[in-house]
């Protein structure tokens, strides 16, 4: 008898799971190894001991929390999947719109460029730029444009200067220490304050 078949029959014999025919097939092995009967009795005892000693159920610690925590995880997973799905939808949506949005966007960029050219011309000529209401910025360089943006919400003013040559590191290393007054900081190439 092949080893695999013998193992199978012996295993099921130990579980009382053999048919009469299978039992007849196994008889020569049992006759050759009478100690197997004792092993079987031992195993029946072991099975009882296993079932008595090893719990088939163990309530997890804090069972209610187990369920509520699980519910939270499941809902988070669900939200994650929803987001993924909606992102997938957005992607498909964008792909459809891309084909007519792209030419429209290009036209908008061209229009903005032409308008920008037109509005920059007076500033370059006069050197004085009308900016935020009631404010003026003077630029001594004709090819430099300036703009003031006043944000009422944050009560702050942003000065935008375009057309300056890039600053070299040596331009920045011009001072040491803090400056007095409310704008008490400066930048140099070695430290940022």
């Amino acid at each position, binding site marked *: 008898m092949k080893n695999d078949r013998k193992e*199978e029959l012996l295993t099921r014999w130990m579980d009382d799971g053999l048919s009469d025919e299978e039992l007849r097939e196994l008889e020569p092995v049992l006759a050759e190894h009478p100690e197997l009967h004792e092993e079987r009795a031992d195993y029946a005892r072991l099975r009882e001991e296993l079932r008595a000693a090893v719990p088939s159920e163990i*309530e997890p610690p804090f069972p209610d929390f187990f369920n509520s925590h699980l519910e939270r995880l*499941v809902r988070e997973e669900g939200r994650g999947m929803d987001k993924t799905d909606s992102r997938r939808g957005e992607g498909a949506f964008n792909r459809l719109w891309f084909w007519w949005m792209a030419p429209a966007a290009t036209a908008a960029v061209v229009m903005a460029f032409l308008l920008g050219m037109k509005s920059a011309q007076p500033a370059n000529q006069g050197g004085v730029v009308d900016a935020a209401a009631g404010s003026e910025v003077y630029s001594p360089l004709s090819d430099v444009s300036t703009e003031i943006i006043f944000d009422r919400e944050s009560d702050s003013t942003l000065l935008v200067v375009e057309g300056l040559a890039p600053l070299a590191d040596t331009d920045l290393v011009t001072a040491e220490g803090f400056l007095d007054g409310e704008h008490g900081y400066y930048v140099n190439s070695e430290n940022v304050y």
Partner: protein
Amino acid sequence: MNFFRQFASNLVKGPVPGDAAGEGGPDTPSDAELVNRCQEGDYSAFDALVTKHRGRVYAMIQNMVRNEADSWDLAQEVFVKVWKALPKFEARARFSTWMYRITHNVVYDWMRKRKMETAGELDDNLLDREAIAAGAQAIPARMARPDEALSQGELRANIEGALEKLSPEHREAILLREVQGLEYKEIADVMECSIGTVMSRLFYARKKLQSLLTKS
């Protein structure tokens, strides 16, 4: 929320009654009914399924990994996977068998990761583990008489010591067969192997277990 009162009430409450096959009692819905409701998106049915099966899942994991915190987290992972996979569950197998299969996959993934993480290191947890988690409520297959309790404690320690010395495959086969009461075919489904392999694993696991217990 009073956490300890909640904990105590649940120790008393215990799992929802129902047998391993998942057939509900007269007042308990069967697994099949609960699964159907889950598939319709009823989370309360899933909550009932979890309450019904968490003890078996946690015990199976705890008997495999021997660590309370990891077992708790892995049991959570099992049920998250169950919830996500439930829409595809076709009831060709019993729900409990399918759930044990997910448990098997989660535990073996964890073991693989653990093996990679601790490669070359001495893992103290693997050498010195608590037999049963301090905060856990164990429900043995049958209740012991008081006069049996003392010797059972010793016996349990011996058996658990012997089980730990088995390979994970042999240990799992023995636990599924003898403790959880699964059929060979179901064990083969859970462990994703042939019935012949299950037989072979049980054969060698039993021999090894007997030999270890005789020595101890």
